[in-house]
């Protein structure tokens, strides 16, 4: 494929690796938009989805949570500051894409099709 568009990278200070295991529940809570730090979620299973939804959220917070999740799932000493900046950059691009996709008006019945096939209207 030809190169995808990406936002310019801004190199932050080094992001520390985290090694706290992530539970499915914590992941679900995080996806619901909790502002509670991921590490806390991972070690405090009492955080409910409702509480998480009440908490304030921001784009930056969501991206930082995603970044922490990635660093927990794929820890590697080669993930230096520059590499982390690249990933953060990609996450920002994904957030922009996500917003575009989820703002697009789709009727409830709009389906993706079970298997994608090329299509043209019958004559």
């Amino acid at each position: 494929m030809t190169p995808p568009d990406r936002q310019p990278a801004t190199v932050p200070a080094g992001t520390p690796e985290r090694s706290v295991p992530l539970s499915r529940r914590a992941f679900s809570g995080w996806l619901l938009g909790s502002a509670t730090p991921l590490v806390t979620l991972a070690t405090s299973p009492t955080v409910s989805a409702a509480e998480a939804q009440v908490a304030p959220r921001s784009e930056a917070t969501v991206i930082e949570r995603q970044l922490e999740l990635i660093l927990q799932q794929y820890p590697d000493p080669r993930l230096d500051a520059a590499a982390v900046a690249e990933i953060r950059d990609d996450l920002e691009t994904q957030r922009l894409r996500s917003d575009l996709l989820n703002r697009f008006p789709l009727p409830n019945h709009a389906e993706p099709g079970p298997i994608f096939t090329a299509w043209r209207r019958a004559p």
Partner: protein
Amino acid sequence: MPADFAFATIRQLAQGLREQRFTAVELAEFFLARLERLGPRYNAVVTVTRARALAEATQADQEFKAGRDRGLLHGIPYGVKDLLATRGIPTTWGAAPFRERIIDDEATVITRLREAGAVLVAKLAMVELAGGLGYRQAHASFSGPGLNPWDVKSWSGGSSSGSGAAVAAGLVPLAIGSETSGSIVTPAAYCGVTGLRPTYGRVSRHGAMALTWSMDKLGPLCRTADDCGLVLNAIAGPDPLDDTSVSRPFQYPEPGAAAGPFKLAILREPTRKPQPEIQQNFATALQVLENLGTIMEIPLPDFPYSAVVGTIINCELTAAFGDLLTTGQVWEMTAPEDRVGLHAASVIPARDYINACRIRRQIQIAVDTAFAGFDAIVVPTGSTVAPPLDREFREYQAPYRGTGLTVAANAAGLPGITLPTGHGERGLPTSLSLVGRAFSENQLLAVASAYQSRTDWHTRHPGE
């Protein structure tokens, strides 16, 4: 053999074989020598398949002597992007972790070309993992950056970089490339050759590296539109090994095909435009096309094409290559940005992927409706000529903007063909693309052949 044979069309080579001016073995030796001598100059070749080529060429000569003629591809050498499986020969996907790997399978496309009598002479270089990891510059393959035969300080395009360069430099008469979103048309445009992206499902993907199952397509890069039609005729058709291959018949040349007049359309121009030379050459090309029929101006339906394509590609490639993350092999990639290209994609919500697929269906319907009634939509292929090797693509391309049709067409699975239109900055080729409705390859080939019968850009080639 005369050096000009390096740039002959399939029909010219086929005629030479039948007039016994040379044998299939001599033809194979001619291109094998060029691949071995010039391939390294452009970083275009991963493996020269000398032994297999000579065996297939010998068989072709024996069949000719016995009176068996398999058609115009019989005895014609070709190369393939190194993401197609070949038994007994490494299939590297352009990526260092796989440089020694041999897949015990044969891609359907290669099987079909062998059945047509064609002779495999090389496996050609490509961007690692077909560019899915987000490369931003030319140094993104273990075989080195693809170098443009028109200017070796410029990129040959990607991800079918070797296929574009090898055809342009006369190392092979034809090559097979793949396109998920631009990987045939971009190197064809940058290298000044003719590239055909078939409709999704027209050509079996069996044995090809999966980057994005629901978007990957295989197609030819050749000297002319006619050559592309001949190759597509050999490789198209249903395949029980690929559920997405379609049963719709394809025959080239199309019996009773109209040679015009054609109904063409251009897209309303964006505010930022391509490089001036690309605009100028496109305007000149439109003057040629105006003599072939009518040209109307239409809008491209408004959709978040890049978000849809980017999300679908990232999700499917993360599924296909997630093990590179868990094994750490991703750190063996050549481009630094590719080593972290999978990480972010691994946390895309399922909702985004499914919504992208839902929107894609709306795109198909809207674009098909917009394109109905036209034989082809005509646009400049890209916003710039090939970037210099030492510049990041986005930095070089930032002042310019294309129509976005390549992304839209790939989102909808539509065919397209890219044709040279002249030369621009640094003497590099410029091009236009013709895009049509699903399964309209023959209409596109007819328009393209008519254009090439009135121009000679496709006959020009770089010096050695």
